[in-house]
């Protein structure tokens, strides 16, 4: 864990703004570990909120149309998308919210599943499977409001402007999980939120504990969060519910709130647009599938790949876009315009900074050594599989040793062994 500049100042207190609907949306047909299959014919007219694709495995992830128009399957860079060309008629299917009070557990899970809700943090794990804990005792239901990535303030904006539905949803989930404790974890730097939310929660007579955590990176990483809140150290790769803990991002809760109280599927989310090269900065409520090219146009800016790179997600764990037709997905919390890093690579000087900051207590320099030698035994000996790819080691490395690329190659080596 390490201190890292938060860089949220410019966007965090900004109100959530809406943009006009884009002329078309691009919805990735990549689900959780498997492709989604369109349920409509290519070229068909779809209504807003209509189910347009779903997975056929037990993950059963669903995808809905955020706008009305003509849907087509297109391909960019070998990846399949559903492109919906907006007819600007806003022709929506009728959304009737369920009667929340009369829903039993199976009904709630079904609502979550049918609204296509997956974790909004980025990994995209289907939420209805996470919440299906059967009769396992759950001691902690943790809501992750620790947005530890620099620049990103979407979760902050969401909590800052939280509506009562959000907290009622938390209560519904608490009942579903039969959790002993509900804890909303936020970073110390946002302590002003605590009072505000506590006041709101007290008025609703809901029992949510708001806990302040350190400002370290990566505080919002699931395993480190669980340790900070519940005091449990869970190895990577095990299911947290088996240890009595369920963690959900605050953004996921907001998506569930929309499904429960408005009957709207997961078709929009809050995204932070920021970065040193961004002309317009702020938090925006965007349709899932909004193409980056459209966003740039709205911001009055062009993408100059020689001048800056565009990152989807945070600057520590996000990924750069390869072409401007990439789009906002259910897990995208930010669009950042950052200048290219000038990497000045030296030899590793064995300073051990990477081992100091590693939240998983690994020795990242050994991954670089053994990945370069294709030494699979060495990689396993130093527990590469426990790495969460948070990027803290590569951030702190004074020699710019290619740690993340070694880690990724190393994991690939182990997989193909």
């Amino acid at each position, binding site marked *: 864990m390490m201190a890292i500049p938060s860089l949220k100042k410019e966007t965090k207190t900004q109100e959530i703004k809406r943009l006009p609907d884009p002329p078309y949306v691009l919805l990735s047909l990549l689900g959780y570990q498997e492709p989604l299959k369109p349920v409509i014919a290519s070229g068909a007219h779809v209504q807003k909120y209509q189910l347009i694709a779903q997975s056929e495995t037990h993950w059963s992830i669903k995808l809905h149309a955020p706008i009305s128009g003509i849907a087509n399957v297109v391909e960019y860079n070998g990846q399949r998308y559903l492109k919906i060309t907006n007819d600007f008629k806003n022709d929506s299917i009728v959304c009737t919210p369920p009667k929340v009070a009369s829903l039993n557990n199976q009904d709630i899970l079904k609502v979550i599943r049918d609204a296509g809700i997956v974790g909004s943090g980025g990994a995209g794990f289907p939420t209805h499977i996470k919440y299906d804990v059967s009769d396992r005792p759950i001691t902690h239901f943790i809501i992750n409001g620790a947005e530890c990535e620099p620049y990103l303030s979407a979760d902050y904006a969401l909590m800052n402007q939280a509506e009562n539905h959000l907290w009622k949803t938390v209560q519904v989930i608490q009942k579903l999980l039969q959790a002993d404790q509900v804890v909303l974890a936020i970073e110390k730097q946002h302590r002003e939120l605590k009072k505000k939310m506590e006041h709101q929660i007290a008025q609703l007579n809901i029992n949510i504990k708001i806990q302040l955590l350190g400002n370290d990176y990566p505080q919002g990483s699931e395993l480190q969060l669980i340790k900070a809140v519940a005091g449990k*150290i869970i190895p990577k790769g095990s299911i947290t519910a088996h240890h009595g803990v369920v963690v959900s991002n605050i953004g996921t809760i907001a998506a569930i709130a929309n499904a429960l109280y408005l009957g709207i599927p997961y078709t929009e989310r809050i995204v932070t647009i920021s970065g040193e090269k961004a002309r317009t900065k702020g938090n925006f409520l965007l349709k899932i599938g909004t193409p980056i090219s459209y966003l740039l146009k709205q911001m009055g800016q062009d993408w100059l790949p020689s001048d800056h790179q565009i990152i989807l997600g945070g600057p520590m764990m996000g990924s*750069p876009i390869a072409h401007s037709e990439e789009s906002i997905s259910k897990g995208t919390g930010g669009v950042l315009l950052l200048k290219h890093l000038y990497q*000045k690579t030296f030899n*590793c000087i064995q*300073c051990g900074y990477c081992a100091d900051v590693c939240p998983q207590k690994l*020795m990242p320099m050994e991954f670089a050594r053994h990945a370069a030698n294709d030494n699979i035994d060495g990689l396993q000996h130093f527990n590469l599989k426990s790495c969460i790819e948070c*990027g803290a080691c*590569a951030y702190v490395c004074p*020699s710019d040793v*290619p740690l993340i690329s070694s880690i990724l190659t190393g994991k690939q080596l182990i997989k193909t062994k």
Partner: protein
Amino acid sequence: MSLNPYIKPKKGNTSFVMLDVIIALLPLVIAGYFAYGMQAMWLLLIASGCALATDVIFSALLLKQYRSALDGSAIVTALLLCFTLSPITPWYMVAFGAVAAILFGKITWGGLGKNRFNPALIGREFMAVFFPVVMTSAGIWATKDYIQTPATNLFPGLSNEYLSSYLSGLVYKTNGAMGEYSIALIALGGFYLLLRKRISWHIPLALLAVFFGSFWFIENGQNYSYSIAGVLLGTLFMATDMPSSPTNNYGKLYYGSMIGLVAFIFIIGKVSYEYMSYAILLLNGFSYKISEVFRPKVWGEKLDYKKRVEHIFYLTLSILGCTLAILSLHYYDMVSYLIYIYIAYIVLKFNFSFIKNITNPI
């Protein structure tokens, strides 16, 4: 395509690490100037110049690296080498030491960061082996005639004479090697490095605690003489040298305490000058193994304590065995053979990895 992260701390790269070490060493350069004036400065300049030139030439020739020599590490090595030498060491010996330190201490290992041993101390041992008469003669420490600013009582206000002379000795004195004139400034430099997180407290604390604790523990501990300034200099600037010390905190604690213990054994074994460099160089050789044995407990994984205790036991046993071996070699005046073996080893190793294109990858 570039990989995450997409932000980096400003002014944090390896050149800045080296710059910090140089900043921490500057006060000692000034103290050296006070004590021996240009006599000391010339040696520092010659050493730095030779080190830089060697680094530039041989990095280009042997490693095909053309800009890496300017990262500042050559200056650090040169300064540290000089700080272990007498201010009246002949200049050609200093030049030889600086060249040997860079060439055999760093370049032949594959460049910056890949060396297993502290280059400055390697340079010093090369000098001791190739100029044994001068390096071990008493004459080289007879520096009285060259003193620029004699040590005086800096605390005349104190009525207690013993206390005032003791305190003055901490701040400024003129005997010993070039880096040993001011314990206060050594501590200041160490403190700066600690604040800048260029060293961690683990090695110095463990080393000093074990070293002084051992003398306190034995009978007649106060009868053994050693240079406190020299021990402190070695502790703060040489034992903490990044490439040659372990990379994790428990490893650093163990490494520090073993240097303290081994240095203590050398002193009671009557190694009169080289106790600190022998101890550090010996532990340098074990530091990779120490990093591995003491690697941190991985998140959520179980630690096999029984196995770890066993590893630590054998590690300690081998370190103590090597200590006794070096002590015996020292009695029979055969330490120089270790350096000959080292040269043969490093030349062979370099040629082997050069021909087979095996480089220490990181």
